[in-house]
């Protein structure tokens, strides 16, 4: 399993208050109900808190799917 995947799954489950959510690298807004602009900000903030990283607006504009978010987390933590 990909590094950070499990922890990020938990972030998604907390934000969307749904313990059955499963994410893959190709997961997008189409796959998760209520993943709109508002919950996206909640998700970004929760990701920052969970991984102790800072995510900028420019970082967010580079995200197409969960895979991009996992890569961003890895870049922030591992340099």
């Amino acid at each position, binding site marked *: 399993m990909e590094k950070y995947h499990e922890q990020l799954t938990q972030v998604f489950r907390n934000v969307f208050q749904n313990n059955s959510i499963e994410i893959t690298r190709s997961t*997008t*807004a*189409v796959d998760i109900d209520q993943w709109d*602009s*508002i919950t*996206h*900000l909640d998700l970004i903030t929760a990701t920052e808190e969970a991984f102790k990283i800072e995510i900028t607006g420019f970082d*967010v*504009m580079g995200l*197409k799917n969960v895979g991009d978010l996992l890569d961003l987390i890895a870049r922030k933590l591992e340099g």
Partner: protein
Amino acid sequence: MITIKQAEKKDCSFIAKIILLAESTGYEITSYTKMFGKTMDELLPAFEKMIDNETDGHPLTYKSYLVAYLDGEPASAISVYKEGENGDSNHLMTGALMTGFDRKSVASAFGFLKNHNDISIQKKQNTLQIDCVATLPEFRGKGLLKELMKAAEEKAKQLHVNEIEIQVWKKNEAAVAVYEKYGYKIVQEMISNKEGRNGKILMTKKI
């Protein structure tokens, strides 16, 4: 003479004005001025800075705009982009807003938006989205929108898209009538629980 061009970096100031003008018809339940509790003039500098980004696929970047020039003067513009091509457009807009405003302001603006979630209409993947349609007041009634709508259809063909979507405020009957004239049909209505007979209308056209 009317000329249609893809927007360039130098158009950011004009496009920022268009975005805020597009939301000042008086029929809006939600708008950036309402979300941020600021006037158009107060928001303009932040929007000029914010839309100066190189992403595409959402209305908060100059890259998604077609500009209509009348005798060399920028006069009208619309945002056109393929939904989902560069990620979800709403998520990209969240990122853009984070570059223009501090996190607390964006969270507070979204708090306002959340109160009107009942009128939200989901954009269909791989459709061409038309957004932020406006003409500077002094250039209205000169056929600029007609040319921009034609250019949008051309762009849809280039992007291999066979459907165009536009969201309009229900009370903005003049806009609905104009889009009907261009061949758009009403396919969905989301009436607000709080604002009586107003809400969002989804209009589409098959290409």
